[in-house]
C-alpha cells in the first residue's frame, strides 16, 4: 500500500494529521481495487475525456 501519510505531508501539508488518519482506510481500499486494473495497460490506449462521439457512431 502507498505511504499516504508521507504523500499527504509532501503534497498536502495543510491537511491536519487527524484528518489524514481518517482517510487512510478508504484510500487503501480504493488503491486495492484500482491498482490491479492498471497493470499491463497497452501504451497506445489513450485517456477518454467525456464521450467520444466518433467512437459511439455519432
Amino acid at each position, binding site marked *: 500500500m502507498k505511504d499516504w501519510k508521507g504523500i499527504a505531508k509532501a503534497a498536502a501539508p495543510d*491537511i491536519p494529521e487527524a484528518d489524514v488518519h481518517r482517510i487512510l482506510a478508504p*484510500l487503501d481500499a480504493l488503491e486495492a*481495487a484500482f491498482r490491479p*486494473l*492498471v497493470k499491463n495497460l497497452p501504451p497506445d490506449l489513450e*485517456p*477518454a475525456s*467525456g464521450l*467520444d462521439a466518433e467512437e459511439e457512431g455519432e
Partner: protein
Amino acid sequence: MTILEVAQELRARRVSSVELVTAALDRIGRLNPKLNAFITVTGEAAVRAARQADSELASGRARGPLHGIPIAVKDLFLTRGVRTTSGSKLFESYVPDHDAAVVERLAAAGAVPLGKLNMHELAYGVTSDNPHFGPVRNPWDTARSPGGSSGGSGAAVAANLVYAAMGSDTGGSIRVPAAFCGTVGLKPTYGRVSRYGALPLAWSLDHMGPLTRSVRDAAVLLNAIAGYDRRDPASSRHPVVDYVPDEGCSIRGVRIGFAASFFERVSEDVELAVRGAMAHAASLGAEVKPVTVPDLAALNAVGRVILMAEASAAMEPYRERRQDFGADVLALLDQGRLIPATDYINAQRLRRALRREFRKVWREVDCLMFPTTPHTAPRIGETTIHFEGQDEDTRLAATRLSRVFNVLSLPALSMPCGLSSSGLPMGLQIVGPAFEEALVLRVGAALEDAGLGIPPCPI
C-alpha cells in the same frame, strides 16, 4: 396527476396555472417543514409566472405540455437573481446574474419554477444529510434518507410538491433519489443536456436530468432540455428526437439483457421486484436474456478515482476554507488531493477500454435491466448496510449499480418497480446505448402502461 394529464386540463381551461401554483405553494408550506426539500421558495415570482402562462394560454399561445406547470430545480443550477448554494456554505450568499441552460430551456417551455431544492452538500454524496441546510427527509418515511445528491428533487416530486424537478447525476445522484423516493429519474447520455450554469462536481461525469412521476413526464422534460449548447464544451450535436413514447407503445421483440453480477449483494426484495419487472417485459413480447458485461467493480473503481480527482480539482480554490465543508465532503476532497495524476490519467485510459468492451454488449441486446440500488432507503445517519454477512459503506452500496453508467456516459432510467416488505420504493434501472434515450423511455413507458409502478406516496 402527471404533467401530460394536467397539461390537458390547462389547455381545456378546466384549471389555471395560478391555481396549480397556489396549490403547490400551499402544500410546500405544509410539508416542507417536515421534508426540508426546498432551500429557497420563490412564491411571488412563481405566481407572476403563472399569471403570464395563463394569459398566454388564454390568447392561444401554448408553448407545449410544460406551459404553466409548477416545477423546481436542484440548488446547483444557476438562477438569475435567486440564491444558488449548491448546498454549501461556500455559496450561501451567491446570487447569480444569469440562468443555467436547463433553467433557460424550461422557462422557454413555459414551466413555472417554484424554487431551489435541497441536496447533498456540493452534490458530493448520496444521503442529502446536509450539514448547512439540514437533512432532506424521505416522504415515504421521514426517518429515512431520500437518497442524493438530488434528495430535495426526489422528495419534492414524490410528495407532490411539484410535477417535476431537475437534478444532476455524477454517480447516481438522479437515479438513487428516484429509487429511494419512488419517482422516475432519467440520466441522459453525456452531452445530451447542457451542463452550462450547473455548478460542477466532476466535469467528465456530470449529467443533468429530470425526476418526475411518470416515464412520459421524464420524456416531456427531456424534450424541453435536450440539445446542443455551444456554451458547454461537452455538448453533443447528435440529433434530438421526440422522446415521448406513443400511447400503447410496444416492446415486442426488444432484446433486454441482464447479468448475474447485477444481483450480487442485492436485497431479496429488490431482486424479486426487478426480476418481476423483467418477467413483465417478457410478457409484453420482449426477449429477455442473459449477457456478459464488463466488470462492474472495475468500472466503479475507475469512476471513483476520476470523481475524487476532478472534484478536488474543482474545489481547489476553496481548500483553505476547511471549516466550511461538512465532514464527509471534506474527507472525500482530502482523498482526491492525494490521488496522483498518473492514477487519474490511467483511470481515464481504463475508461476508454471499458467503454469499448461495453459496446460489444449492444451487439447482443438493445438495452439492459437491473436494480437502481441494491437496497431501499437507509435511515438518516445509517452509514453501513449489511449484505450476505458483510458490511458495506452505505454511500458505496447505494451507487454501486449507478456509477457505472456515469463512467460509460450511457442513458439510464430509474423507475419504480414495487414496494419492499417494509413499504419502501424500489427502483428498476433501464440502460441503453449512447443517445438511445427514446428506446429506454419506450421500454419504461410500456412497462408503466402495463401496470408496473407503485401507489402515490401517502404523505
